[in-house]
């Protein structure tokens, strides 16, 4: 049994009179999209869109519905039936561009979404218990013990007016029942463990006195203080310089290798994923569109979106002089999953069949490599570099 098993997770923001009823409303029926209503979000005029000379600018006959799928009323379906699992000690990636629902997914798993205004659906079993159904106290206990999370911006998750040392020892006291000098010693050891030089001095300092990289290390120290089974990292290196990113990624790898912590890595950076994740899930508009082991995924990107992403990235090791192959349009050019493939307005493999309901996840290439597409990229051609 996987450590974490997320099954058809949906998160809906706003909407008519719905409220978060985590834990009580077990039989929520899968709220179906209610027709072609306007989604909330920056209203964009389709006529201005998708006109770049960079991408072949053509008038797609598909109507756009704005960011995130419509979910009835003015509700926004930020996560729209996401399923994936994380095994013990495994590193699993959730990749996608802004607004695809990666952060909302992780916040939902951690029980950190506002209780009002966010409606959850589906299941997320962690060691057999559904995280979505847990009461606030139970999930708070789990957070910081078996489940831990680090964020893109460590400053916002550290208390600015409390010394680092107090924040770390606090966790050791609360979750491991340690006291006084023992807790302080352990805290210093933790900082040392994550590569913070002069830990005794650092413990007395306030978050703003630490560099971005040091803050992220401190946060990792706090996250691993209780030897969590699963660490969720949401863009943990995005705000950092590339040489510091390399240090942090190495640290995360070490944790996984040495402590056996499972890692759910949320990122927009396919380079980070390529070197780190065992299993990769690509998200688009609130749904997993492709899922596979990393070697297979990068060798044979099968969903046109994944394929397009890889073609968009300038590679440091690629020959120069070739133009990039961008995906045309933007995330705003989207149709509701209920009507068809949300990627259709941007897809150059689009065909009529793409607009008859949500494409199913299938395994068009090989077992274990799933893609949600009716016309997948199957040729074993190399990825456009």
């Amino acid at each position, binding site marked *: 049994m996987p450590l974490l098993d997320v099954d058809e997770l949906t998160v809906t923001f706003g909407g008519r009179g719905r409220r978060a009823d985590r834990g009580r409303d077990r039989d929520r029926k899968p709220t179906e999209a209610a027709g072609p209503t306007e989604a909330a979000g920056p209203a964009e005029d389709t006529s201005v869109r998708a006109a770049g000379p960079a991408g072949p600018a053509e008038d797609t006959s598909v109507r756009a519905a704005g960011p995130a799928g419509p979910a009835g009323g003015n509700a926004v379906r930020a996560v729209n039936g996401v399923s994936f699992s994380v095994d013990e000690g495994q590193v699993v990636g959730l990749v996608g561009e802004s607004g695809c629902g990666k952060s909302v997914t992780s916040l939902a798993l951690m029980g950190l979404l506002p209780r009002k205004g966010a409606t959850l659906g589906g299941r997320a079993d962690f060691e057999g218990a559904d995280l979505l159904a847990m009461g606030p106290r139970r999930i708070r206990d789990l957070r910081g013990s078996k489940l831990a999370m680090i964020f893109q911006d460590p400053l916002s998750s550290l208390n600015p007016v409390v010394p680092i040392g107090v924040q770390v020892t606090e966790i050791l006291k609360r979750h491991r029942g340690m006291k006084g000098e023992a807790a302080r010693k352990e805290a210093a050891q933790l900082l040392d463990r994550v590569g913070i030089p002069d830990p005794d001095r650092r413990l007395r300092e306030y978050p703003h006195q630490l560099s971005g990289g040091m803050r992220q290390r401190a946060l990792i120290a706090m996250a691993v203080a209780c030897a969590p089974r699963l660490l969720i990292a949401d863009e943990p290196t995005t705000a950092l310089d590339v040489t510091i990113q390399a240090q942090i990624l190495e640290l995360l790898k070490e944790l996984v290798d040495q402590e056996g912590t499972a890692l759910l890595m949320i990122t927009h950076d396919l380079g980070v994923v390529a070197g780190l994740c065992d299993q990769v899930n690509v998200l688009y508009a609130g749904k997993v569109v492709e899922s596979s082991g990393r070697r297979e995924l*990068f060798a044979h990107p099968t969903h046109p979106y994944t394929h397009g992403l890889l073609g968009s990235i300038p590679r440091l090791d690629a020959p120069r002089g070739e133009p990039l192959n961008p995906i045309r349009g933007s995330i705003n050019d989207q149709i509701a999953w209920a009507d068809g493939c949300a990627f259709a307005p941007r897809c150059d493999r689009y065909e009529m069949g793409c607009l008859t309901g949500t494409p199913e996840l299938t395994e068009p290439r090989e077992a274990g490599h799933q893609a949600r597409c009716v016309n997948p990229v199957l040729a074993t051609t190399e990825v456009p570099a």
Partner: protein
Amino acid sequence: MSLLELDGVKVHFPVKKGILFDRTVGHVYAVDGISLSVEAGQTYGLVGESGCGKTTLGRAVLRLVDVTDGRVVLDGTDVAQLPEKEMRSFRRRLQMVFQDPLGSLNPRQNIESILSEGMAAHGIGGNREERREKIKEILAKVGLPGNALSRYPHEFSGGQRQRIGIARALVLEPDLIICDEPVSALDVSIQAQVVNLLEELQKSMGLTYLVIAHDLAVVRHISDVIGVMYLGSLVEEAPSDALYEEPRHPYTRALMSAVPVPDPEVEDRRERILLLGDLPSPANPPAGCRFHTRCPWKQDTRCATERPELRDLGGGHRVACHFAAEIASGEITRTSGEVVPAAHEGSGGSGGSEASGAPRASGASGGGAAKGSSSGERASEAPAGT
């Protein structure tokens, strides 16, 4: 003669203290003696990590900050010496494209007004009608429809706003466009659109760019020549391909080795030189070679005491390291800095977990057993990337 020449440019910001009297207690050496030249019709890419001074250098060229010392010469004119009045009309020739397209566009102005403002100020494009025609022409060039004229910035997506920012620079027919992190706020797929657009415009209009960015892969893709900055100075400069094929400065090597490549085959072999510690503060830069506090090749002589000059090693490859030649020949080997051989074995199995096929591989194959090979091999052979 090059279109833009920087000669020993320094920008030092005073650090003030005191409530009643502003007492200068020190300086931030944001840019500390940079010389480089940008050829007409080419792209010069300036890379470096946060705080290295790349944005300040760009602002110095535009004279948005005062140059403490040195010369900024555009097409024969020393920008730093121009009287304010002449500078106002000279500004047209130097335009900037910013990182945050929304923050740099006035939300209350429609696109026509945003684009014609500068034209009117500089007396470009004749009357209102002619200006409108010219704007439409430029909008088409950057891939926006003519009806964008009457719209407002918030009605566009991030990538489109960046196109507006580019159009705003283009309507003034500048000699040089400085792009400060032009794509870093954009999603990958949109980044590629904007990068391609910048390249197409350069080809069709003969533009000259100074591109400032932290993303080495993006910079390498669009630049003819790349300068690498560290703590206010240029540590290496070379034609784009040469820099990638043969990085000669220890910092460049570390920087390039740290960039992840979206290809597991490469990632598993890529050696990473992990630098120790953080960037020192530009208010208190180390003496001697500014990189010596983190340099894996640091020597006991000269490095901590003598600041290395940029030296030409031939072929337009300039390097500021006392020991560049010895490091390249292998005479000097690394003394610190961890090299990660990057033997990531995923879930313990020899072929990696995905070899087993199933995406939900059995829990038993968890990687807990694989002891970290990453923690310390201080290999002494030369690093990757050479």
